[in-house]
């Protein structure tokens, strides 16, 4: 009797340890985000609905990019073209939506998302078939998509309907105090993709392929389909980031620096969010928190009156510090086991 209880306690403890090991990072990043939010609240005179709406809305871009890159990195790839896909979607949508109503804007959005998924799925297909490393093919798409964006919209311009802007920002003017639409725009796609990743066989296949492509293949996983699917989803989320920019600014901005910054932020969010660049490990939920953190550092550093030239350094140091802390915890855990 007592022996059984002891076994059960042990197995419960063991399960808890395993659970913590699997999700420790994700929880850690969310705790870090909560701490940063609380800290920011003390730095400014009034942390009200305006500030929440601002953070939720302005985080959308990095959050979508984080999901986009996260899905691709989980399957063992990397998409350097993510930022360019974002800029391309932003340029196309801002150009087409200019002067259109809400209904037409929705049609354009759907077309842009579907087009981006197809296009990036095609990129995934090229990677699978040609066996050229992901980093090379997507480095090319970074330049190609940026160039196409400049062809479509040679200089910043375009527009968006008020209803479409409200969908992402909570108000027709893009600035306001209604934060629910932005929070919904943040949570719903995240929930959909993370449930799909963790619950559906096709989603789990991404993890299988990411951790060991040969083992996955031998156990009957369609590895080519998993990789192409990941790129397609990644493309759609990068395009969603572009649509969010269109909604926030009612403007398209085709410049290459935006594409490059977008890609760099997406990789930073993935790394900070605990998705291993080797593939197969991590969750998009962590990457999303990291995406919000990467945004919120800007107003925090501004509120702290930190010399702007040091702000970039602090951002980099934070990423390294988080990585090192996690690495140290991992080493200690291995030693105790």
């Amino acid at each position, binding site marked *: 009797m007592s022996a059984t209880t002891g076994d059960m306690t042990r197995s419960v403890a063991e399960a808890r340890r395993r659970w913590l090991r699997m*999700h420790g990072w994700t929880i850690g990043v969310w705790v870090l985000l909560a701490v940063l939010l609380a800290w920011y609240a003390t730095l400014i005179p*009034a942390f*009200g609905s305006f500030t929440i709406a601002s953070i939720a809305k302005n985080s959308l871009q990095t959050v979508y990019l984080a999901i986009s890159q996260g899905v691709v990195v989980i399957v063992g790839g990397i998409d350097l073209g993510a930022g360019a896909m974002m800029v391309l979607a932003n340029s196309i949508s801002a150009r087409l939506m200019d002067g259109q109503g809400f209904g037409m804007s929705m049609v354009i959005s759907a077309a842009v998302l579907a087009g981006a998924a197809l296009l990036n799925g095609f990129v995934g297909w090229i990677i699978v078939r040609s066996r050229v490393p992901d980093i090379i093919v997507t480095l090319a798409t970074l330049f190609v998509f940026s160039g196409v964006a400049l062809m479509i919209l040679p200089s910043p311009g375009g527009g968006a309907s008020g209803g479409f802007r409200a969908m992402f920002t909570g108000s027709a003017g893009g600035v306001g105090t209604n934060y629910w639409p932005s929070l919904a725009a943040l949570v719903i796609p995240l929930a959909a993709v993370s449930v799909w990743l963790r619950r559906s066989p096709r989603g789990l296949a991404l993890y299988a392929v990411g951790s060991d492509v040969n083992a996955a293949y031998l156990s009957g996983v369609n590895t080519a389909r998993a990789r192409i699917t990941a790129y397609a989803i990644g493309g759609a989320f990068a395009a969603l980031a572009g649509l969010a920019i269109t909604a926030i600014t009612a403007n398209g901005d085709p410049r290459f620096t935006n594409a490059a910054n977008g890609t760099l932020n997406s990789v930073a969010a993935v790394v900070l969010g605990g998705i291993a660049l080797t593939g197969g490990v991590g969750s998009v939920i962590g990457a999303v928190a990291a995406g919000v953190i990467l945004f919120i550092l800007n107003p925090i550093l501004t509120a702290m009156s930190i010399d*702007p030239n040091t702000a970039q350094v602090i951002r980099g140091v934070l990423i390294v510090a988080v990585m090192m802390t996690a690495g140290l915890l991992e080493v200690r855990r291995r030693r105790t086991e």
Partner: protein
Amino acid sequence: MRMRMRRGIRWAAALSVIALIAAACGDDGDGGGDGGEEGPFTIGVSNTLVGNQWREQMICAIKAQARVSGVVDEVVLANRDTDATGQIADIEGLISQGVDAIIVNPADATALDDVIATASDQGITVVAVDQAVSAEDAYNVTNDQVAYARLGAEWLFEQLGGSGNVAYMRGFDGHPADTARDQGWDEAIANYPDINVVSEVHTGWDPSTGAQQALEIITTQDVDGIWTSGIDYPVVEQFQNADEPFVPIVGADNNGFIEQLIELEDGGLVGAIVTNPPPVGGVATAIAIDLLTGAEDHPRDTLLTPEVYDNVDDLDALEELFLPDLPQGFVSTMEIEPWTTYTAQDVLDCKGPGEE
């Protein structure tokens, strides 16, 4: 196991929701004053191009003017390399911080309309500096960028006797100042049908990019004159590197360029500066403070007309502007009468109110 996993996700989600709700309990800020107050005031600054000497000086002029005004207790800088999307976020951050006035160097002329309107609704005075914004509630304090390009281009075309091949070295593609200068350039060139533009490039206002492009133009094209959007001394240096004879060149009031115009005058360099003074930031600060204290009312648009000095007729003026101890990229015009009340040393110190 699966059960626990789900609970974990729920827990993390709950945590973030709690954080947000807890945060939401705070009151909304009341922004700032409506004018006619005594201060002390907080001034926010939003700038989207870092590591650029002109912008650095603009910010130092803002800090210096805020410091000598005596009614500003803090200048909050939202300063990073970003686009209109990031600038909207930065301005929202400044609004959250409860600043009384925002001085913004806009990344886009129209994209900031809504966020500026929001700031204005909360009683915050918004002054756009360097280039105008379309927002109705904003005050614009700008160097006349259309005139900047037109005056320099006309000097160049006259210098060439009305005909020849010119290189058009522009600024940052899509930037409002670049667009305005392009308009001035078009106005000037319309009157000179025999001027051919053989090369048009965007330097991005980056000295090393501009130097690269200049070298390419000098060595591959037959140019009689070069107009630059302020990336000037690197272009002159490329003539020296390539060992090519100088052609007439138009630049801005950069210290390095002025030095070249003075020293290389004997070597055959002919050129003109068109002033584009960064102390426009100080002017914007003076105006913002006037509006906050209610000391003086100002029109929506304040346009500062640039001046042209060449090393043919105005060598004395150039020698007066030249600052021997300062770097090449430093812009020589430090004060703008009657607006700025600081000294040149205040700008060099670059200290805001309360900074040691």
